[in-house]
């Protein structure tokens, strides 16, 4: 949270309408996403009850587990969900593009031209997929506890998707509430924003309603069934429990069919509004102008997707239950570097995000009032170090000597502050520039900001992501418990209870 977002919330509350906190969208919005609206049975651990799933708004598949306490039925549900999800995912493994190798001696790389994007209503949906993955990826397709082939496969994909969602720069699994709050601020608190219906009420209230009315309506579980995966306790008591009891006690298949149909309709009523809202959210966000780096990040998502497809084809072991020491350290390393790059890219793409940096004085925007592209200094030899002066009204908190600042328009050029002088509420910043000007002693035209140009300097930068030096898994040091056991399929995992 920052003062800029806080002010946007104040404005939203005052005007009764959500306010943009970004000028561009930083999320990739797929033109053919898969939407999943899951419901679970209360009291059980991630026990599927129903789901609405599909890649077209007008054509959802409604999956229902009529007797959600029966383990076999849960696996039938998973199998059906797997069919839908896996065929969606597989649809992206046909078209391949070839890229030059990253390093000299490597083969040229291949990656898929597109990747899947799954939308769930809220972080609960992400957690649902994570647990679903944990529940199914260790299952075996042979032996005493055999399940359908799609079950463990779905488990691995669900796990992969849920894990990608831990990285803010990934767009393969999107929680609608988070995607929306990343772009709009509402006049309610972030806690209330967790309710998709309330959030959408602020962003796009139904006709004839104010945002506040819509948000208030959203809290009524009858008018707006919860977006799941948990169901409304009153629905459980008055609709679900009697239906399940009727199913349990149905004296014949005929009766069972009838009750099942009733149950399906009731569950569909619970999911349909959420289904519609997720699609509406996709539409609203998709209509926004994407930021300049969105394409690049999606390409990275496609890289990771291609890698995972290859992994499944090669070894395809299910992902570990918890990270080993080495894997954990690697992931933390990745997370930190990807986060830093994501923050820099967002700021470079979006003046409102950069505004947050400027508010804290860690960045400034101003007009170039003086420029000397031919300035040189003598270190061991004479080198080109162009100088500029930028005048800014921002509350600058950088000081003379601060170096390694960058302007998003010239990402390869570093600036350091030589001097600051203040007059009439404006600060003049003298900067020395290095890099991005070729090798000679004359800077090519345009490589140095000219007088009158608007520039923004900050400490942010997008850097090369090195994989980092880590010990091999079997070299885990004694300080961290020594090498872990290698993965071996275990019957106990395949047989694990699901009750």
């Amino acid at each position, binding site marked *: 949270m920052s003062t800029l977002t806080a002010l946007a919330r104040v404005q939203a509350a005052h005007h009764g309408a959500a306010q943009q906190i970004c000028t561009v969208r930083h999320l990739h919005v797929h033109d053919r996403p898969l939407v999943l609206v899951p419901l679970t049975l209360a009291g059980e651990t991630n026990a599927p009850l129903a789901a609405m799933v599909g890649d077209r*708004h*007008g*054509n*959802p*598949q*409604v*999956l*229902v*587990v*009529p*007797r959600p306490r*029966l383990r*076999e*039925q849960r696996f*039938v*549900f998973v199998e*059906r969900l797997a069919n839908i999800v896996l065929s969606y995912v597989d649809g992206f493994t046909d078209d391949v593009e070839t890229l030059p190798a990253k390093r000299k001696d490597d083969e040229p790389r291949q990656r898929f031209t597109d990747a899947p994007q799954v939308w769930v209503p809220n972080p609960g949906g992400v957690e649902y997929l994570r647990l679903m993955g944990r529940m199914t990826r260790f299952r075996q397709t042979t032996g005493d506890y055999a399940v359908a082939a799609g079950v463990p496969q779905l488990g691995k994909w669900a796990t992969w998707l849920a894990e990608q969602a831990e990285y803010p720069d990934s767009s393969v699994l999107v929680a609608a509430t988070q995607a929306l709050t990343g772009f709009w601020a509402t006049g309610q608190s972030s806690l209330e924003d967790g309710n998709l219906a309330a959030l959408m009420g602020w962003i796009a209230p139904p006709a004839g309603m104010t945002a506040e009315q819509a948000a208030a309506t959203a809290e*009524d*579980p*009858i*008018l707006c069934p919860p977006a799941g995966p948990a169901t*409304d306790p*009153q*629905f459980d008591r*008055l*609709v679900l429990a*009697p239906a399940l009891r009727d199913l349990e006690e*149905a*004296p*014949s*298949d*005929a*009766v*069972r*069919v*009838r009750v*099942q*149909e*009733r149950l*399906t*309709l*009731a569950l*569909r*009523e619970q999911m*349909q*509004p959420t289904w*519609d809202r997720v699609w509406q959210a996709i539409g609203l966000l998709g209509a926004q102008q994407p930021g300049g780096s969105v394409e690049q990040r999606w390409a990275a998502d496609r890289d990771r997707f291609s890698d995972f497809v290859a992994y499944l084809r090669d070894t395809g072991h299910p992902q570990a239950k918890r990270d080993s020491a080495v894997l954990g350290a690697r992931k933390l390393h990745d997370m930190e570097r990807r986060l830093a790059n994501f923050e820099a890219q967002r700021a470079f793409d979006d003046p409102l995000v950069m505004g947050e940096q400027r508010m804290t004085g860690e960045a400034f925007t101003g007009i170039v009032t003086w420029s000397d592209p031919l300035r040189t200094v003598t270190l061991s030899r004479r080198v080109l170090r162009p100088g500029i002066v930028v005048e800014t009204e921002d509350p600058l908190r950088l000081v003379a000597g601060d170096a390694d600042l960058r302007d998003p328009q010239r990402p390869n050029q570093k600036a350091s502050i030589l001097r600051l002088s203040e007059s009439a509420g404006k600060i003049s910043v003298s900067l020395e520039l290095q890099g991005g000007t070729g090798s000679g002693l004359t800077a090519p035209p345009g490589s140095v900001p000219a007088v009158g140009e608007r520039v923004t300097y900050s400490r942010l930068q997008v850097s090369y992501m090195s994989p980092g030096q880590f010990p091999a898994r079997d070299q885990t040091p004694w300080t961290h418990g020594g090498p872990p056991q290698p993965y071996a399929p275990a019957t*106990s995992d395949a047989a694990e209870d699901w009750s």
Partner: protein
Amino acid sequence: MQLRAATPSGTMDLDLRRGSFTVTLNAICWKCSPLPASGFSSGEPAKPKTGEYWKRVGVWYGAGVSSMDDLERTISGLRKQIRQSVASNDHATLAELRVKLRQAEKQWDEALDELAPAAPATMSLLPLREQVHQALTVLTVAAAPKLIAAVHEAFFAGAMAGGQLTHLRRDEERSFRSAPHARPYYLCSAVTADRLTPVRGLLAVSTWPLERRVIGSLSPRVDFLTAAIRVAEHVLRPGAAGPHALQLLRRFAASIPGAWADADEVSPDMVMRAARAELDVHDHSDRVQRRAAAARASKQLDESQQLFGAAPLGVARQAGERR
């Protein structure tokens, strides 16, 4: 068995063998009000795969379908109203609606009964009290209804609904009081060692020595171990090691140190050895406590109290005051 039925909004796939179904919607037609229950109507192109089944469905839909539809709509509507009243804390309306709902549900149940053939019973033919007696005789110690039911299921034909056991003890007590010793045995209580009051949720057999029915602080564990040994012994009998029996044994084995190496199949001998080893640790102290309490009970309690336990202190006093 697989079925596909058309509904006004799309198709519905049924897989009755696996008990699942999928509905594909052609268009979005979500409404707050319940959609009419539909499908399987004569004009729709349904493709039954099993003739016999379809006949039954046909009969069912032919008969009470319209009234059932109405009832379902009523029920669904009532439930919605109830949720609204609950949400707004409107207790008066709520009570009224609940009565209406119960009526409607009753009618629906009745309509179903008319339509559906009676479910064949697969329960044991013995009277409940005999089944319980059978199970307790296997265990030789006082046990909770759940365990009794599990033992019965493991070693005797048919399932037993544990819930029915709750009234059993009271019936037995009434029967004993009206005509003592008219039956060869009674299903009675276990009694607490300290106050000789009935132990909640445990059933025992009247022909057992009092000492066995007194529960001291170690007795739950001792009885558990004894029961484990008895179950293991029983599993060893020819033909007794069915899946339910082994499952029961595993349950015991899991909670006794050294009775079961997780990866292996459970071994009755191992369970017995392990249970006996732990039993040796507790047996003496438990016996001392039980004996003392049993002696006290035979002195202080009348015959019926010895079987069904002394009334708790407060209750006895109240009863006395009333007199």
